[in-house]
């Protein structure tokens, strides 16, 4: 069994050699472990393990389950080192270390971060946390009230904690940090609270702040210097983070960094997206609203920006740009190019040259009626005029909705099939823009939203996207939005969870359902695969419905109000019939 696994691992590794992430595996050490939510620096969420594969997955069994004791949305990925699994729970952000080398994986230790309870009032979309990161014997994670904490992986003792965000200005932190070159990269949340977004690098050893790059404001604070070479003309100029806003509006302009960070060690660049500009009501912020709703490439050591591309200039619909940037090498017109694939909230899947920021292709991966095309010459999307929100008027059937074609839920890329597995939603909305009143520490939105299912009536989709060709290969329709992350394995499988609580394994090539398991609560977490201390392959996922889409259950909304949870009340009114609250870790293996 062990030998067989190693053999196929070799094949898989050679198949994956085209993939940058695999050729520079500083992080995942042959993918036997899973030290960060995305598995690797390239954000592929690909496991080279093949023990569990298309032929035997039908006999996959629950190995153990472990309750987190929390009820809110569990969006985190468990992370795994040689013999320990670490789970960070939603608020109150308890870090659990499970001993994988003992039968039943008991708690090795438990670290309570005790965040300020008031921070729950500035968490726009449930009190989630997207995971921890492991590096050099330490586990790093963030708390809802804006702290970054390093804990000793062996003892569970706190090494440092740094307070970064201020809840009285609406800031919180929900993202999973990424550790690059001895620096912990952390960004803030609060795009619905009029915060000013930033990404910060902390010294992994001490927790001291090394640099902070804001997403709005003068070049000196955005860390735009002589190295900044954006590909498109509209991104060149002095202090665009000030001049593309009404006076002072950049101070509360959003552009938070609550999503995923990728890292390319060869180029020594990190890539991350900035969130929506605030408020949602676009009339209150004329201009392109730089540097929100776009992707930054930066030097991780200095923070200096290399390039920027804005998917949604003057964003109209809360189309955050924070979705994962999957780094891969792609054959474009006979030439191998280092690209990143980014399935954006605005419904387009961008393939961008990650050295220069040039958009190679942009194709709609969902039903989009707000943007009819992306002009590849200028890089600008063309907004459809009749779908633009207007103050005091109701614009019907805006697709995709505020949650986008796809929200935070990360996709996975298999270098074997060369498909990107995208968990996403199929939702549209009616919207009325209303004036937003800025009061520090309270929501700053300015839109009345009523969401509903898109064409076809199914609210979610799990699809496989051929990045090279730029089209969908197969699609699985789901009743509810697919709010979980995806996992691809060299065993020819793709895993994802549904909000009803089904954890599914499908054939990576055809999308045929091969195995499923019904968890105790809806799944919005990120599945992972790892090799346990006993040499066996395991697949793990956290269940526990919630998040923005699952607030109807985790926040006990009254769905007689269609606007509950920013419009989800209408779209998800029937979710409580299918699932209830409760966080549990599920770990599966072959018998």
């Amino acid at each position, binding site marked *: 069994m062990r030998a067989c696994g190693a053999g196929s691992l070799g094949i898989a590794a050679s198949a994956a050699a085209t993939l940058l992430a695999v050729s520079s595996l500083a992080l995942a050490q042959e993918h036997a472990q899973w030290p960060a939510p995305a598995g690797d620096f390239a954000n592929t969420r690909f496991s080279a393990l093949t023990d569990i594969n298309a032929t035997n997955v039908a006999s996959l069994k629950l190995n153990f389950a472990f309750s987190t004791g*929390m*009820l*809110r949305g569990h969006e985190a990925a468990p992370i795994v080192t040689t013999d320990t699994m670490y789970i960070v729970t*939603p*608020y*109150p952000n308890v870090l659990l270390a499970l001993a994988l080398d003992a039968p039943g994986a008991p708690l090795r230790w438990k670290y309570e971060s005790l965040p300020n*309870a*008031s*921070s*729950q*009032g*500035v*968490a*726009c979309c449930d*009190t989630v946390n997207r995971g921890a990161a492991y590096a050099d014997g330490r586990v790093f994670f963030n708390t809802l009230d804006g702290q970054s904490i390093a804990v000793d992986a062996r003892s569970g003792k706190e090494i440092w904690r740094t307070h970064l965000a201020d809840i009285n200005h609406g800031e919180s932190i929900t993202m999973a940090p990424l550790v690059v070159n001895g620096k912990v990269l952390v960004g803030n949340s609060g795009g*619905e609270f009029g915060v000013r977004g930033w990404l910060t690098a902390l010294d992994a050893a001490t927790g001291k702040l090394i640099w902070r790059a804001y997403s709005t404001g003068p070049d000196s604070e955005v860390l735009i210097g002589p190295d900044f070479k954006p590909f498109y003309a509209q991104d060149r100029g002095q202090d665009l983070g000030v001049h593309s806003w009404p006076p002072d509006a950049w101070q509360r302009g959003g552009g938070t960094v609550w999503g995923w960070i990728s890292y390319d060690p060869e180029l020594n660049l990190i890539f991350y997206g900035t969130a929506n500009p605030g408020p949602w009501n676009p009339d209150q912020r004329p201009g392109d609203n730089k540097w929100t709703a776009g992707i930054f490439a930066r030097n991780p050591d200095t923070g200096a920006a290399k390039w920027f591309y804005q998917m949604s200039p003057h964003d109209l619909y809360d189309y955050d740009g924070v979705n994962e940037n999957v780094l891969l090498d792609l054959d474009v017109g006979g030439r191998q190019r280092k690209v990143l694939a980014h399935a954006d909230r605005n419904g387009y899947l961008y393939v961008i040259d990650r050295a220069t920021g040039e958009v190679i292709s942009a194709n709609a991966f969902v039903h989009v009626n707000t943007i009819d095309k992306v002009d590849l010459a200028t890089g600008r999307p063309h907004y459809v005029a009749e779908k633009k929100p207007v103050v005091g008027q*109701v614009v019907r059937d805006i697709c995709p909705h505020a949650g986008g074609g796809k929200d935070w839920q990360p996709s996975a890329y298999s270098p074997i099939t060369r498909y990107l597995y995208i968990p996403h939603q199929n939702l549209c909305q*009616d*919207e*009325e823009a*209303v004036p937003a*009143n800025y*009061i520090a*520490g*309270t*929501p*700053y*939105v300015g839109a*009345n939203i*009523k969401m509903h299912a898109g064409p076809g009536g199914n609210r979610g989709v799990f699809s496989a996207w051929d990045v090279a060709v730029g089209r969908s290969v197969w699609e699985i329709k789901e009743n509810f939005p697919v709010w979980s992350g995806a996992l691809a394995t060299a065993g020819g499988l793709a895993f994802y969870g549904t909000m009803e609580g089904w954890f599914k394994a499908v054939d990576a090539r055809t999308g045929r359902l091969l195995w499923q398991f019904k968890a105790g609560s809806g799944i919005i977490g990120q599945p992972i695969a790892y090799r346990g201390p006993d040499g066996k392959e395991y697949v793990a996922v956290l269940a526990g419905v919630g998040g923005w889409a699952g*607030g109807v259950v*985790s*926040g*006990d*909304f*009254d*769905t*007689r*109000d*269609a*606007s*509950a*949870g*920013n419009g989800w*009340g209408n779209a998800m009114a029937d979710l409580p019939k299918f699932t209830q609250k409760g966080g549990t870790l599920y770990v599966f293996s072959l018998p």
Partner: protein
Amino acid sequence: MSSRCPEIGICLLIALSLTACEREDRRFSEAAAAAKAPDTITQSDLQPGGPTPRATLASPYDDNAYAVSQGKQLFEWFNCSGCHAQGGGAIGPALMDEKWIYGAAPENIFASIVEGRPNGMPSFRGRIPTQQVWQLVGYVRSLSGQVRKDVASSRSDHLFMKKSEQSLPQAPPAPSSPPPQGQ
């Protein structure tokens, strides 16, 4: 028919017109009642020796349509709607049902706004004047049908999201509150 009928009719008419006055009265510079914060708040029904009978402070605007509609406007202006939506809840709990985590009495709602609550409700002490807090209390109560139907709003200026406060069914507060959610 007896001869007293017209008198009863006249009395009824006078009574009706009086209630109409109260309903429409616009008290711009309210003094006493609204300016005094309640000091009878308890959050537990459990007290050694049994609960002390307490007079629940009447919300001063339960019968004043103008104040309740002002409360509805303030509910948006002060971003209450950002967290409680239009009563269905979002970051904060729903306000149109029978569940009250920190007490359903008007003084409890008043205290929730002024003092804040530990699981995320901000404190608006010193930020919202007392009179406006009471207007908000009136509107919040109208969301679960705790004010008279002819006092509650009958329409909204915005996208239709729920039945108007006037046509929402009464949701009498449950006797004891469920614990805060989440943990």
